[in-house]
């Protein structure tokens, strides 16, 4: 397969000294208008200068930009840990329904559709995670982590151990957000070195867990794709020390229908619905990071939650309520509602059979792809993702070169336990043919010399971009470019 990404180019001209791809809106046309307002002059600005273009000009501008962007619908996107699956189109349609465009501050009575869907999604997620209660409020995975940590904090405070339990244990291979969320909540982070097999080292955990442990945060399967087989012992160690166990839901796509965090002994978890439940990643977001907890912790969840009104009979009615010892709020309203609608629609479409099969095929695809590539995969048996090593090659250069073969590269250089890591997650959506193409891309690059890799990419819109220049000479707006 041959790939050439669209590339609109413009040479330096009267508007700019730079050779560019599509010019900036401001380089096309701007207008300065005097602000004449019913407000007194001393409360208003004098003028406003912004791009002024017609709708056809804008349609063309943004269409060209979209052509210079790569998404899941463009081609394979095996970005490890990000679960870049296909985003079903009908979920966009239901999120765009007029009935979904509601304000938060209406009465419960007038919001029965929204509250009913939220109650339904809380229920779906609780079943899938093996949890007892769910909050839909956190607007992203990291916000879910932070929420879960606050729940753990509230629990320990209620037990009179709030001050004493000031540490959160995080494996060295964990997502960076785990460390950052723990620090945000005011905890000291205790980094747990992985064992030689890439899993949690039980002895190290025993040594780390104690009176000061508030929480142990764990991803399962971990970032190497390995299932933590000792999960029950891990749970015992943490619980015996008086701590709680947190499940980072980033890798839940490996387990749907096969295992549930709640059954493994986790007390708190978040779901990354933009990963596991196929809501679009939108160039970086929005996602949503609902949090599930055991019964014992439900009273601490953010407010409000949704529940079925008591004795509502056949015609179920729903209401918002404040959990008794709520941690408060983590979002000004209740998170990314439109994303939650898409999540609900996806789960309602797949059901038991679809969810179970999604994980089965995600794991099959990862294993098949790994079996077809020349790069070494040091840790097995992996599930929905694997971490290959680029060996003597620079993984970042490998990634750039893969772009020339029309595929998005894996996540690179992480986790660090594998040298020159290529963390690869093809997801369930790819066919054998596409996986073979992907494998061909890996193998073609594996056989190329450093010079070729360093010259890549050639067929993308932009050639290799100078990161050092971007950081040393910050230009974060068109105004900054103009000042140069």
């Amino acid at each position, binding site marked *: 397969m041959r790939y050439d990404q669209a590339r609109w180019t413009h040479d330096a001209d009267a508007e700019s000294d730079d050779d560019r791809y599509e010019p900036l809106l401001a380089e096309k046309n701007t207008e300065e208008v005097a602000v004449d307002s019913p407000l007194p002059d001393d409360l208003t600005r004098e003028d406003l200068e912004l791009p002024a273009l017609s709708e056809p000009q804008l349609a063309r501008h943004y269409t060209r930009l979209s052509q210079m962007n790569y998404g899941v619908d463009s081609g394979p996107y095996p970005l490890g840990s990000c679960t870049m699956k296909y985003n079903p189109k009908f979920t966009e349609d239901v999120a765009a329904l007029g009935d979904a465009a509601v304000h938060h501050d209406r009465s419960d009575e007038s919001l029965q559709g929204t509250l009913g869907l939220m109650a339904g999604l809380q229920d779906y997620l609780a079943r899938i995670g093996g949890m007892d209660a769910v909050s839909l409020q956190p607007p992203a995975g990291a916000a879910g982590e932070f929420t879960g940590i606050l729940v753990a904090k509230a629990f320990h405070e209620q037990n009179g151990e709030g001050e004493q339990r000031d540490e959160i244990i995080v494996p060295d291979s964990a997502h960076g957000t785990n460390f950052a969320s723990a620090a945000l909540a005011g905890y000291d982070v205790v980094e747990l070195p992985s064992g030689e097999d890439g899993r949690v080292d039980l002895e190290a955990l025993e040594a780390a867990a104690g009176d000061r442990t508030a929480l142990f945060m764990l991803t399962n399967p971990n970032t190497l794709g390995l299932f933590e087989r000792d999960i029950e012992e891990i749970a015992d160690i943490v619980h015996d020390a008086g701590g709680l166990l947190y499940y980072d839901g980033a890798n839940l796509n490996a387990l749907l229908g096969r295992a549930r965090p709640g059954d493994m002994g986790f007390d708190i978890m978040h779901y990354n619905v933009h990963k596991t439940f196929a809501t679009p990643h939108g160039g970086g977001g929005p996602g949503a990071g609902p949090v599930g907890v055991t019964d014992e912790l439900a009273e601490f969840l953010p407010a409000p939650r949704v529940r079925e009104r008591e004795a509502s009979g056949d015609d179920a009615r729903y209401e918002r309520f404040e959990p008794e010892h709520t941690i408060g709020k983590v979002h000004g309203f209740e998170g990314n509602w439109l994303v939650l609608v898409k999540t609900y629609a996806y789960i309602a479409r797949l059901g038991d059979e679809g969810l179970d099969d999604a994980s089965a095929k995600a794991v099959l695809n990862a294993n098949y792809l790994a079996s077809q590539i020349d790069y070494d995969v040091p840790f097995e048996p992996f599930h929905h993702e694997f971490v290959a090593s680029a060996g003597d090659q620079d993984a970042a250069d490998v990634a750039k070169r893969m772009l020339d073969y029309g595929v998005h590269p894996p996540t690179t*250089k992480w986790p660090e336990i594998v040298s020159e890591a290529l963390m690869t997650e093809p997801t369930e959506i790819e066919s054998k043919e596409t996986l073979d193409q992907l494998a061909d891309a890996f193998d073609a690059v594996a056989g190329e010399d450093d010079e070729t890799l360093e010259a890549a990419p050639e067929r993308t819109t932009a050639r290799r971009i100078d*990161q*050092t220049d971007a*950081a*040393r000479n910050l230009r974060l707006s068109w105004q900054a470019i103009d000042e140069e």
Partner: protein
Amino acid sequence: MSFDVPDDRNYLESHEWVDHGDATATVGITDFAQDELGDVVFVELPDEGDDVTAGEEFGVVESIKAVSDLYSPVSGTVVGINDALHDQPELVNEDPFGEGWMLEVEVDEESDDLLSADEYRDQIE
């Protein structure tokens, strides 16, 4: 690959060097360290007049993909900082033992863990 390790300096395991002058000492990071970091894009240093403590952090050096703490080989008062690094952090890459220097310190005490050039060479080989 061989790295420059001037004999007239002392080193810390964490890759800082110290050059003992008459009244003050100069501090920077080694050729090996700059190479490991890659293109340096930012150096955060203390202000003149601040105190630094041997073995403790005195600043941060950033490249595109990594951030490293800087540890002081000496205790004392900062009497000079290399202002040029603010606009030209690349000096750390280009001339780590010269124009890429970071601090000038009026020394009260030296770290007990200073390495000789030979000892440091052994460490990075």
